[in-house]
């Protein structure tokens, strides 16, 4: 009788250990690759990458650390780039899949005000935000979208700021 009970005890323990091990293996496979924690980026639609064997994931992005009002994206595959640009600011994100959940990681999207004088009289907004462009001979300013060019006078002084 006691031998049979001993066998039952061993079997139950082994079963629980096996379940725990497989669960742990599943958890271990869910790893965030990018963005790195505390990363500062000028990419307004950053690429999120992770490793894991599950077929689908839920990516949560919030500007509150407590994820009280997250943007949620259901993703199949191991990478995702938001189709719309994020506003400048600090965000937290985490991934969920089949009972596994990564801890919240933080990243910050910052604006970049950059201006190129491409050739005589042509300037280009090479930053990541719309610019107000002030030209020497004019009062007021012209709005210049990202990656757009503007023809100005060859000897014109030009100043640009975030719109």
């Amino acid at each position, binding site marked *: 009788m006691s031998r049979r009970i001993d066998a039952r005890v061993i079997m139950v323990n082994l079963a629980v250990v096996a379940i725990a091990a497989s669960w*742990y293996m599943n958890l271990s496979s869910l790893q965030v690759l990018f963005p790195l924690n505390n990363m500062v980026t000028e990419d307004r639609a950053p690429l999120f990458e992770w490793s894991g064997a599950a077929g689908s994931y839920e990516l949560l992005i919030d500007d509150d650390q407590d994820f009280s009002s997250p943007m949620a994206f259901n993703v199949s595959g191991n990478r995702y780039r938001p189709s719309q640009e994020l506003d400048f600011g600090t965000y937290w994100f985490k991934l969920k899949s089949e*009972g596994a959940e990564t801890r919240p990681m933080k990243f910050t999207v910052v*604006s970049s005000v*950059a201006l190129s004088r491409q050739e005589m009289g042509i300037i280009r907004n090479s930053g990541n935000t719309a610019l107000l462009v002030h030209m020497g001979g004019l009062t007021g300013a012209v709005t210049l979208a990202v990656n757009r060019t503007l023809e100005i006078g060859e000897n014109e002084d030009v*100043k*640009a700021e975030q719109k």
Partner: protein
Amino acid sequence: MRMSRQSRSKVIEWRLMLVAAVALLIFISSACPAAAIGVTPGRTTIDFEPGADKSVSFTITNNDHKQFNAYIYVEGDLKDYITFDKQIIPFNESDNSKVFTYRVKLPQRIDPPGDHWGKIIVMELPAGWEAPEGETRIIATVAVIHQLRVKVPYPGKFMQIDLTIQEAVPNESVKFFVKLYNLGKEDLAKAQATIEVFGPTNEVIATVDTEPVAVKSMERGELIAAWKAQVNPGMYHAVVTVRYDGEVGKTDKNFYVGNMLIDLLDVTVKDFKLGGIAKFDILAESRWNQPIPGVYAHLIVNDNKGDKVADFKSASVDMSPFERSHLYAYWDTEGVNEGEYLTKMTLNYADRSSEKEIRTKIGLSSITTEISGVSVGAVTSEEAVLQQYPVVLLVAVLIAINFAWFMYFRKRKK
């Protein structure tokens, strides 16, 4: 000593060549990108605190890796409160960026309430040019501005509203995040938002309300609403009305339902003879509720070794909402052999593109095509970050089971 006619013409020839070379050099130097300067972040925002003394940093970027001097000065109504040590920051070709720090020392009071600005101007000057003030400038300058915004609270109640929209595909929920910044000196007891969604013909197609929220002075609150987008893909417009303690505030924004998509339906080639011109008839369909201008196809044909055989484009067309259109692309097949090829076709439109692979079988008098899917790349690994609580839970279960067994046996022995 007098020069002969022949040697004089040689000298003239040399002079002309020299002038041409100098002109060429001037042309090349003027045609190359002359300047690219940047600052990041472009704006730093702080809340006003009487007598606050802070250090603020930003990065000056040398995007073109060139040698120049960054000349820094301040404008704006906060300029008297901003100081820094160095007015000239030299950059070399090897400098990718440099951090610049300034000090802002605010007074006890700033009037009127609202946003106040300090503008730190970073001007690119050629290396060696160090004293632009008081001199006649003969160069055109490029400058970028880092803005310091100081928010001075309003008396009473004052709400700033910021709308973020999480877009969705048709039949899924679009989420509206209405952020409320209470810039007033008084707390807000109740703020609630109504969101009206307008369709392409400017009619209201949906109205959703948020739950109410209270927002303390100089703090932030958030209102959330969801709307199931049972509509066609396309651009829509949201108008948000926030009512707070008897006041009303409004904001609005465009958003998209679904992705702007042009679907590739079919690719056919008729009346073909190997060695002649193949006319590719590409049938595409817009799944968008707005016109899409300048749609064109780019085809790259590769042989079975992956070597490029041809690269050609169609003419561009403007597509009306939900329209089917034909794009025509022409390929000169002279010197091309019979066999199977893989064609990568990219449809380009509105700064976007969609890609398809097409198996292309070329015979003596026919080209047949078969559209297949799109491949996806792989990634590399880094450190794991996990929450271990499910494992801890299982270990707890294991301990509990064993404890139960232990108690059971102990009871039976007694």
